[in-house]
């Protein structure tokens, strides 16, 4: 096929530009249409090349100007990369022009001409193979930008523009020196001929190559010589910001990609070095940034830094380089354009004021899409790119680079998520809403959709991405589209969907996975049933809830580490949105997210190490990691512990679970935490279960578990907020589980698993019930409740059974765990850990008693005299779960025997013997059913006797109690409920100092202070920025060529 030569991009653009000059300022409207037409033409040209080259219809093509072969004349090269890059640039050109319609029309044809010429020059810069020509058109571009900056009125824009001109002027001067001297030393200006026949023999040649490359690096606004860039981002029209970071940066980056070869591969390492400094530095400094556009500027610079790292590592990444680079590039390109454009619509400088976004809910969706794409969450391209990058870097042993990169991404996540948090939850009463012009919102929508599409198409091209199962995500998308329907319908759809999915999935799961899948799916369905209690639309709830479950099931089904990590991140995102729905849960959502991301990065590195040893991505590689195994397993465990909220990584949990909605708390507590447990189990199995040579790791893990159990329970005792109490109790319970698993013995695991199941059952019951009660009485504080047994007996029974089961008092199921643990610790010899955990068991009684006494017994408050029983929709799941507890208590062997058989696969020694219904361990025996029968029997006998003997008992009034002659009038004074464990507190207060929280606060504070001090180098004075640039050159010269 014959294609339109890219030279026409230049010819047409310039022709039209000159023609527009003819039109004069009167005819902005028509000229604007012409502008759009021209940009569209460019897009068409580059897109057809993309198509032709991608489908192999043509080979990369050279375009010769003046009819002479290079190096005698300037030539352009249109290869696949070039075509894609130009396509990206031109697309953003069209959308950007559309977005800036008003500004461009207002400033007349002149501005439109500039706009058109800018994009023409960017195209040439990408295509041209002649150094000097690149220089010329870089100049064209930067002058055009300098012109566009001042479309924004005001001094800020003007001074920013001047700084920009000054800086770029110096930089291009340096570039010119480099070019002219490289001509001197190599006798050519054509990149290809320089690369081919000049292997940088002369020192001078190398220096001039260095000057060229460093100049381009500076054009990319490398940290810290980038104050001018930041000012431009802040001051100029948001549309220009988008062009700068999406189009201009992309083009310049590609120039770097082209010319880096002229210095051979000697500079690659240093480019990565500059890149990592840029990435970490600007993301760190952004922590203190409050101006949204400047924040985006920081982030853009960081992203470019990341791209430079990739460029520097292209020898290591090999054929993955393009994939990784484009993955990051495209995500950044679309997301940044989107965010800049959004900032133009929202019109709020301070990121706190972005809370106004909430007044147009679908804006949250857009913003969320962009931010999660930037941080690198699935299903966006950046996720797969980052995954591949880390895998290859670890594989080549560049651990420290991985650490640096992940640290940088972490910082980026901090400020981005915080920003998003402000948008979702911030105060927005006294900010007036914003109006939306369709011509502005359409481009935003397009890039948002493009992100998803890109992700969908990029995924299969990663090494094992093809295997990713998108079906649950389709379902989520469907629910998202149906979000306008009332709760009842959506809930039903969701439940049916999950049930069907479970039905189809469970046959091909082994026992271990089946247990967890059942907890996730069945538990999910039960907790969803409670959702029927809610009225109205409950906008946005179902998509995110299902997103979480999609992630959870993906973790279970994962065949490859990529699938696992994919699911892990999806689950994290979903749960974050779930948690942050709570009224006061903004800070907790943030800390949850940060710990999750930190954990996820630990996982990522661990998985990378696992991959490094064995050149495979199957989940099997977890068994027998060969490359840095201690670190690998350690990182994996830490990653999973961040989800199980082990002591030290737990501070997010109480708030997150405590403030979440009533039916969300059980989801995130009873169900979500098990994901971490599942991960730990996989890791421990990987560590070679019974005959592990990593016993130190397991030992440390065990102690961590024990201490977590103690701390969690102790903190729970002193809570006044019912849901926080349960949340802390979850921390403790997970501590037990971790300890049990860490023992790495049959009994230990049996105990651990029985706890996994138990905790799911009773914590779901308790959270559902308390949540429902809270919905009725409208407070979390227990001391404001009391005597509720009279109003909601069913809830009371549920809680009573729940706490008996939790406390491990026979005959209910909790005792199984305790008994197994006693045997396990004796078997393992971890006596002290055991003692600690049983002590925490004793402490558990205290908060459990509070839960039932303070809430349900004692004196009924006046304002609760006629609250109703908790909603039927909560009672249904609650009593279903109670039935489960009862069955487990009556017939423990039904649960424990299969578990035992499963565990025997990894721990054949020291199993339980089952004689009839009696479990016999090496140390003791326990006949669960018989015990249950005996106790319940005698209980009934006594009860009946008592009932008979007190048939004629007459009911007395609430205050009819012997009270030293007085008759109390007010329930508040007669219901001792506040700070009841004062005595214990006096004895144990040192153990309750929130050291961990203090430590984390200190860390954040230090980071922020560093950021605040460092960023003062951006003094705002143009001369200082020039000085930065020159210094940057000198320093890199010293580093690279070494004085």
């Amino acid at each position, binding site marked *: 096929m014959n294609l339109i030569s890219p030279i026409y991009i230049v010819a047409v653009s310039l022709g039209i530009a000159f023609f527009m000059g003819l039109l004069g300022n009167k005819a902005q409207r028509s000229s604007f249409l012409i502008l759009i037409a021209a940009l569209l033409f460019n897009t068409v040209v580059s897109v057809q090349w993309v198509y032709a080259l991608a489908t192999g219809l043509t080979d990369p093509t050279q375009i010769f100007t003046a009819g002479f072969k290079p190096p005698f004349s300037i030539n352009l090269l249109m290869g696949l990369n070039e075509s894609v890059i130009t396509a990206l640039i031109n697309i953003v050109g069209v959308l950007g022009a559309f977005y800036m319609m008003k500004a461009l029309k207002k400033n007349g044809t002149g501005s439109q001409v500039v706009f058109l010429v800018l994009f023409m020059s960017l195209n040439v810069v990408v295509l041209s193979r002649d150094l000097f020509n690149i220089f010329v058109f870089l100049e064209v571009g930067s002058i055009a930008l300098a012109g566009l900056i001042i479309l924004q009125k005001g001094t800020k824009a003007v001074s920013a523009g001047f700084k920009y001109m000054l800086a770029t002027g110096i930089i291009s001067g340096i570039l010119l020196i480099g070019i002219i001297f490289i001509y001197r030393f190599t006798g050519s200006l054509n990149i290809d001929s320089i690369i081919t026949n000049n292997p940088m023999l002369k020192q001078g040649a190398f220096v001039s190559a260095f000057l060229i490359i460093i100049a381009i690096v500076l054009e990319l606004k490398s940290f810290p010589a980038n104050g001018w860039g930041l000012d431009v981002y802040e001051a100029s029209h948001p549309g220009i910001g988008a062009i700068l970071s999406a189009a201009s940066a992309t083009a310049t980056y590609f120039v770097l990609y082209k010319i880096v070869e002229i210095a051979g591969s000697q500079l690659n390492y240093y480019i990565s070095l500059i890149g990592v400094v840029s990435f970490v530095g600007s993301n760190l400094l952004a922590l203190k940034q409050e101006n949204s556009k400047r924040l985006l500027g920081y982030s853009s610079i960081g992203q470019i830094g990341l791209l430079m790292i990739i460029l520097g590592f292209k020898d290591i990444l090999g054929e993955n380089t393009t994939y990784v680079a484009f993955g990051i590039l495209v995500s950044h390109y679309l997301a940044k354009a989107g965010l800049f454009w959004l900032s133009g619509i929202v019109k709020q400088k301070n990121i706190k004021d972005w809370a106004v976004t909430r007044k147009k809910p679908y804006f949250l969706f857009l913003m969320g899409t962009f931010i999660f794409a930037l941080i690198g969450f699935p299903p966006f391209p950046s996720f797969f790119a980052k995954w591949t990058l880390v895998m290859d870097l670890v594989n080549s042993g560049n651990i420290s680079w991985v650490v640096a990169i992940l640290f940088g991404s972490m910082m980026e996540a901090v400020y981005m998520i915080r920003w998003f948090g402000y948008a979702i939850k911030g105060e927005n009463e006294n900010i007036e809403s914003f109006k939306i012009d369709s011509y502005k919102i359409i481009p935003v929508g397009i890039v948002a959709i493009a992100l998803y599409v890109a992700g969908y198409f990029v995924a299969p091209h990663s090494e094992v991405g093809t295997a990713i199962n998108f079906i649950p995500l389709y379902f989520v998308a469907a629910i998202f589209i149906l979000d306008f329907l009332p709760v009842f319908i959506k809930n039903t759809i969701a439940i049916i969907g999950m049930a069907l999915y479970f039905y189809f999935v469970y046959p091909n799961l082994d026992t271990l996975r089946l247990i967890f899948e059942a907890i996730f799916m069945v538990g999910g369905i039960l907790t969803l049933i409670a959702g029927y209690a809610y009225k109205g639309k409950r906008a946005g709830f179902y998509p995110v809830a299902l997103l979480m479950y999609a992630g959870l099931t993906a973790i279970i089904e994962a065949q490859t580490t990529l699938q696992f990590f994919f699911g892990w991140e999806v689950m994290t995102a979903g749960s974050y949105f779930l948690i942050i729905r709570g009224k006061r849960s903004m800070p907790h959502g943030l800390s949850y997210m940060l710990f999750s991301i930190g954990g996820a990065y630990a996982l990522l590195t661990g998985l990378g190490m696992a991959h490094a040893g064995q050149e495979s991505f199957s989940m099997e590689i977890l068994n027998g990691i060969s490359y840095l195994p201690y670190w690998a397993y350690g990182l994996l465990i830490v990653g999973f512990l961040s989800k199980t909220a082990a002591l030290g990584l737990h501070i997010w949990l109480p708030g997150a679970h405590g403030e979440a909605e009533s039916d969300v708390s059980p989801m995130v507590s009873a169900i979500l935490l098990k994901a971490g447990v599942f991960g730990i189990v996989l890791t421990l199995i990987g560590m070679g279960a019974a005959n592990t040579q990593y016993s130190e790791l397991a030992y440390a893990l065990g102690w961590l578990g024990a201490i977590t159990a103690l701390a969690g329970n102790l903190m729970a005792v002193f809570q006044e907020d019912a849901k926080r109490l349960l949340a802390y109790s979850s921390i403790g319970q997970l501590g037990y589980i971790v300890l049990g698993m860490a023992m790495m013995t049959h009994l230990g695991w049996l105990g651990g698993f029985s706890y996994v199941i138990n905790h799911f059952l009773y914590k779901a019951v308790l959270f559902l019930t308390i949540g429902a009660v809270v919905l009725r009485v409208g407070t979390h504080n227990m001391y404001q409740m009391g005597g509720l047994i009279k109003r909601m007996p069913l809830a009371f029974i549920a809680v009573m059974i729940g706490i008996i089961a939790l406390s491990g008092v026979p005959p209910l199921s909790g005792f199984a765990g305790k*008994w197994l643990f006693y045997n396990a610790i004796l078997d393992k010899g971890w006596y002290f850990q055991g003692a600690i955990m049983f002590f925490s068991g*004793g402490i558990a009684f205290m908060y459990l*008693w509070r839960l039932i006494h303070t809430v349900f017994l004692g004196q009924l408050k006046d304002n609760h005299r006629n609250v109703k029983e908790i909603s039927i929709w909560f009672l249904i799941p609650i009593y279903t779960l109670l039935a489960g507890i009862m069955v487990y208590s009556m017939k423990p062997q039904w649960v424990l025997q299969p578990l035992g058989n499963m565990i025997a696969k990894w721990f054949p020694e020291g199993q339980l013997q089952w004689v009839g219904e009696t479990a016999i361990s090496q*140390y003791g025996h326990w006949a669960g059913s*018989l015990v249950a029968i005996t106790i319940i029997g005698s209980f009934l006998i006594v009860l009946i006797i008592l009932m008979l003997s007190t048939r004629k008992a007459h009911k007395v009034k609430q205050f009819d109690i012997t009270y030293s002659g007085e008759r109390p009038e007010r329930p508040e004074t007669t219901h001792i409920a506040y700070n009841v464990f004062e*005595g*214990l507190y006096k004895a144990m207060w040192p153990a309750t100092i929130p050291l961990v929280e203090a430590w984390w606060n200190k860390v954040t504070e230090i980071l922020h202070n560093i950021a605040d001090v460092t960023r003062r180098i951006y003094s705002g004075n143009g001369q200082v920025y020039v000085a930065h640039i020159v210094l940057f050159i000198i320093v890199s010269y010293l580093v690279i060529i070494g004085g």
Partner: protein
Amino acid sequence: MTIYAKLGYTLLGLLIVLNWGFLMGATFRKIGARVAGRYGIPFYQPWLNLLKNISTRTTITHGVMYYIGPVFRLTGGIGLFLFMPMVFTGTVDGPWTNFSFEGDLILILYFQVFGMLGMALGAGQGGHPYSAMGIARGLAQHAAVELPLTLAFISIAIQFDTFSVYKIVAAQQGGIENWVLFTNPFAAATIILAMLGAMGHSPFNLVKAPNEILIGPATEFEGTYLGFMQSAGSILHVMEAVLFMNLVFGGASNWIELIVKTFLIYFWSVFVGMVFPRFKIEQSVTWFFKVPLLLGFLAIIIYSF
């Protein structure tokens, strides 16, 4: 032996325990009175109390849980008895081993709580503020006592490599020198000290303080309820003593030995109670975290190597 014989023996045993509990209780109240220079009650007072309470006509109720309280408590006592091998006769399914084949030391440990739970629930339903206080204190103290006790139990379990109370008793037969008291002095010492808290006499009876001045649960529950609770109380006292006897003092090979040993064990706690004034909760908690805890650690350390 047949299940019926088993049941018969068990019921008989329960009867003995109940009455011995009453007698012992009365005796110690008498001792207490004499120490304080009063005349004190006749030894048959508890039986009178029981009769009176059961035969009172007027009874009240504060609601369902109000029943459950005493029931839980009594069940707790009976259950504890059921799972405890009382008298060592050389065979596991001997006449006085009750239903100990159903569970071991751990079952007993956790079942103790059953009674407390009942007390807590019932008192709570009673709606009296002080009962809440009493229970809160009780739980706190219980937790503090549990820690050293648990350590001691674990140590004994390590020593005999079993959790079965019966086996532990069996291992201590054949001479006083085999008693844990001598074979595992640290564990024994720990238990002997921690036991004071478990028995709940002065100085560790702040739990009962609210109903010392005559209000709180003891007066909320009258009539049959109180009767049940008193019976439960006396059973529990005996069983506590029996537990420690079995674990530390070589168990009992016949009822006489059991009665003598339990009496002495019980006497020890009462004796201390006579001498020492009452602790505040924070005091008692910290006290248990000092000496007994230390001993408990030693008891384990010597076995963990």
